[in-house]
């Protein structure tokens, strides 16, 4: 089988080279501290074993976050592992332990179908999960679908292969040519009849199904076939599939579908093998390593600083399951701002690019930087990452570097006075990239018609209360901002620190005797400026200063 050998060698080479390359990359360009182990070696072994059992085998971390995912992944994991070990590597593995192994025997035939079915069900659940959640759909990229597709193709082609083999008279003939010595003339016919009836072979001619013939065929089968062939009834997926393909059986048989499917099946397997080092396909290697290294931890301990290598392992262990992004505390900011880098799973992609020195455009650097800034380091992603990646450490360690490369416009603004800021904001184009939660209040004069100048809003404001010199520290007070807006002088308000120091406690709005939406307006002013600044500071013909 030259094709097979060449293919396997090629796939394996790509795989090995790829793995070596990725492992080498685990030493990224971090500025990390020297790691040290806090506990002894024995304890480490115990924990490692525990991690292997709980996290790697039983996917305990997945189980914590999502039952659906745990179920799907377990099915795929055990199913695929089963197939890999007992079917793909049957000559090296199964045959060694079970000398009388034949792939068509039970329990192997049954197991093959079982594992295959498990994997398929698991895959179906994975697809369902990604399709059902809108956010997850948004986060599912090419490699995610590709992975599912490849495995799916392997399985489907495998079942089709088995089904077509079950049906194929050519395969039957090959078997009988090699292993069957007919005693009498009608023996082959009887055997064929029996095999058509019991095993599901679809011959081009219809064979008799009378009891006598079948009995004869059964006994012949008993003598010659049974040692290597179990009844195809236990191929509980392939056999019904073969039956279902009945209508086109003739066409499949004549075109030697079994051989076609064999090629497909093997090619898909080789592709999967070769793809192993790429993207998330690598996770079967990197994730278990990471899980063992993490030893069941879900936080970012002070005493345990990961080395560059472990950080690299962590970055590669991502399965792109999206759980981190689904639970991210600042995900609402993504909904408003639209920057995918706010979500951990996407931010990790940028981080990898950044750390490995890949060329990134200014736009992607800015987006990554913003995502890095918006992260509140709440630890949630790290806590529930099924792959045990120490995301918290990765975010914190990279913040300084990325902020230096792509600084936040806010730092520049903070250094200006209120009046200068107002000029800057005046100069920036109106933007609609962010829709404020309440829109259009600040510009609508009806918002202020009711103001009776009682200054209650300022009087109850806790931010004003804690300032020793409110006018100096906040630039403008709430009722002054309202008056400026009422007079149509919105541009003068945007630079005031009151707008930015407001804690949105809503006391002003609650206590206003005229029901003016003071807090909502301040909130809207903030969003208005944030939108303008974010849009890259594209200038209009304002009479202001530039950023």
């Amino acid at each position, binding site marked *: 089988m030259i094709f097979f050998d060449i293919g396997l060698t090629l796939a394996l080479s790509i795989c090995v080279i790829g793995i070596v390359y990725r492992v080498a990359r685990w030493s990224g360009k971090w500025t990390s501290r020297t790691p040290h182990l806090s506990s002894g070696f024995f304890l480490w072994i115990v924990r490692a074993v525990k991690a292997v059992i709980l996290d790697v085998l039983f996917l305990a971390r997945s189980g914590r976050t999502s039952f659906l995912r745990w179920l799907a992944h377990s099915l795929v994991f055990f199913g695929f592992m089963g197939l890999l070990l007992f079917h793909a590597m049957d000559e090296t593995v199964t045959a060694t332990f079970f000398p009388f192994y034949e792939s068509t025997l039970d329990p192997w035939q049954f197991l093959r179908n079982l594992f295959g079915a498990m994997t398929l069900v698991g895959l179906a659940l994975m697809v369902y999960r990604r399709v059902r959640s809108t956010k997850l759909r948004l986060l599912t990229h090419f490699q995610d679908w590709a992975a599912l597709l490849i495995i799916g193709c392997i399985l489907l082609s495998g079942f089709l292969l088995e089904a077509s083999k079950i049906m194929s008279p050519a395969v039957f003939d090959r078997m009988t040519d090699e292993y069957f010595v007919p005693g009498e003339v009608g023996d082959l016919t009887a055997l064929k009849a029996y095999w058509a009836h019991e095993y599901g072979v679809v011959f081009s001619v219809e064979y008799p199904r009378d009891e006598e013939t079948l009995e004869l065929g059964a006994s012949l089968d008993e003598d010659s076939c049974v040692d290597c062939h179990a009844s195809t009834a236990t191929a509980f997926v392939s056999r019904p599939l073969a039956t279902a393909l009945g209508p086109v059986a003739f066409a499949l048989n004549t075109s030697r579908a079994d051989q076609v499917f064999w090629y497909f099946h093997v090619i898909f397997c080789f592709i999967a093998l070769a793809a192993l080092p790429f993207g998330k396909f690598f996770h079967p290697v990197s994730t278990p390593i990471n899980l063992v290294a993490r030893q069941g931890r879900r936080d970012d301990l002070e005493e345990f600083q990961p080395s560059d290598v472990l950080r690299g392992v962590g970055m590669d262990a991502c399965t792109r399951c999206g759980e981190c992004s689904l639970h991210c505390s600042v995900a609402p900011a993504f909904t408003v701002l639209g920057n995918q880098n706010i979500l951990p799973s996407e931010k990790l992609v940028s981080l990898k690019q950044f750390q490995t020195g890949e060329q990134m455009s200014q736009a992607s650097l800015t987006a990554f930087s913003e995502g890095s800034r918006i992260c509140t380091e709440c630890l949630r992603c790290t806590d529930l990452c099924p792959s045990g990646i120490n995301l918290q450490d990765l975010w914190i360690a990279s913040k300084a570097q990325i902020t230096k490369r792509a600084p936040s416009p806010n730092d520049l603004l903070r250094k200006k006075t209120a009046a200068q800021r107002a000029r800057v904001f005046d100069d920036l184009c109106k933007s609609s990239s962010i829709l404020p939660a309440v829109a259009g209040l600040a510009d609508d004069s009806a918002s*202020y018609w009711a103001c*009776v100048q009682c200054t209650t809003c300022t009087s109850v404001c806790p931010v004003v209360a804690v300032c020793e010199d409110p006018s100096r520290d906040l630039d403008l007070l709430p009722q002054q901002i309202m*008056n400026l807006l009422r007079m149509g002088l919105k541009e003068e308000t945007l630079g005031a620190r009151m707008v930015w120091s407001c804690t949105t406690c809503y006391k002003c709005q609650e206590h206003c005797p005229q029901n003016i939406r003071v807090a909502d307006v301040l909130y809207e002013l903030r969003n208005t400026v944030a939108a303008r600044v974010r849009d890259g500071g594209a200038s209009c013909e304002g009479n202001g200063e530039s950023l």
Partner: protein
Amino acid sequence: MNESFFVVCCNRSEGAVKVKTLQTRVLIVGGGATGTGLARDLALRGVPCLLAERRDINAGASGGNHGLLHSGARYVASDMEAAVECREEGAILKAVAPQCIEDTGGLFVAVQGDDEQYVADFEGMCKKSRIPARQLDLGEARELEPLLSDKLISAYAVEDAAIDPFMLSLDNMAHALALGAQSIRNAKVIGFSMGNGRIQRALFLDETSGESFEVEAEIVVNATGAWAGIVAALAGADIHILYSSGSLLVTQDRLTKRVVNRLRKASDSDILVPGGTVSVLGTTSVTIDSPDDCRPTVAETDRIIEDAQAMIPILATTRYIRAYAGVRPLVLLGESGDARSVSRGFSLIDHARDNVDNFITITGGKLTTFRLMAEKTADMVCNKLGVTAPCVTRTEPLPASTMGRWTEPGLAPKSWVRNRDEADLILCECEMVSRNSIDSIIENMPGMRGNSMLKAIGLRSRVGKGPCQGGFCGLRITGHLYDQGHVSDEQGLTELKTFVGRRWRGFSPVLWGLPMVQADLQEALYCGALDMELDHNTDDFTCEDDE
């Protein structure tokens, strides 16, 4: 530029009473637009003059008009001469006094139900007077001014503009003073001492202090506007004047960018003029018996709104801050008639016809043509004096003065935001006028100490012009005046009551909706809480309390 005070020339005793006498070449009675414009014109020609005003700058019609610099299109049908004058004067003023003018442009719009014949003739009439009027497509008109009714049938664009009459007169006066003119406020002319067919002396009374003084001048100009008839009578001259009161409403918001006129034969409620951060809607024409009776009324307010809402529907529901009224002096040149049919052109009367050789009256006219009126008057004066210097006000730019600065809407708040002294604080919240600005206004009017200071401050700034109509700021500023020692005893309280009472005239006609809430709060504060309506000098029992 400080306003200079008396130049005492000599004291003349009359019996036991010593009366101060001032001397000048030209005495101008009346400090409105015409009077101040005349003072400047004469000063530019090198003629020393003294302006005496009964109350304060723009106390008459100059302080109670629409603030409209007419393009002239309004008069093309009724008074072509006036229309042309407006066009010419408007252009001159835009060139020499741009700081007082916002060149907003204007629209003439007609709605369903308006006289279509007038609409049809309009363009032709404008052409005849050479007044630019460009027809607009209705959609375009509504795009320019979104608040226009959707029942428009015609629209034209014209060159109307908005002018600040206070800034104008204050700048005129400042320039005149800088050139050597003098001025006195609180000087009511109560008699002329005649002899040899001339006015020998004019006798004045300061109504606030009860003191009198005299002025000797070669020429006396009666520029008292609506009071011209009364003043002329003191010299034995006869002028028949019809007093036509016109009321206007001020909205809280600036509703339109441009001036919006009703395209029909000139009548009431025709015009909406932007005034900085507000809009002014008017007007009416009600004959009254005396120019001192002029005040806006509820009936006029309702009439204006009901009529004008056809062209701009939001006028029915927007918040109005206050109303005000001014008296138009209409000089009867024959039969008395409806006030609108009497010419709005001005009357320049040389009282030589009444055997008073050195007495001139200038009255009538409109704000837009004040400069022309001043020019013609100055020509007549110079003719009588034998002065040959020509008028230069057509081209000589009017310098912006400090005195006039604080009336500019939005100036106080902008300056608060941009250049603020950290020790400063805001006394008038509505218009954000700060303590320092008020102090600087007080500094620039040394003659005002102790005399209706609140009112004078109000005139020179936007204090009291916002939604609270002096309700809150009056109290705060009174406190400040006491703190600074500008008022003593009960003087501050008395002035406060006068100030609030004065603002009430303009406030009471618009008391529905939100202004009613404001007024309720104001009375609850002044009367309910502070008992200010009670006469504290007539305690009928003392405040003794047993413990």
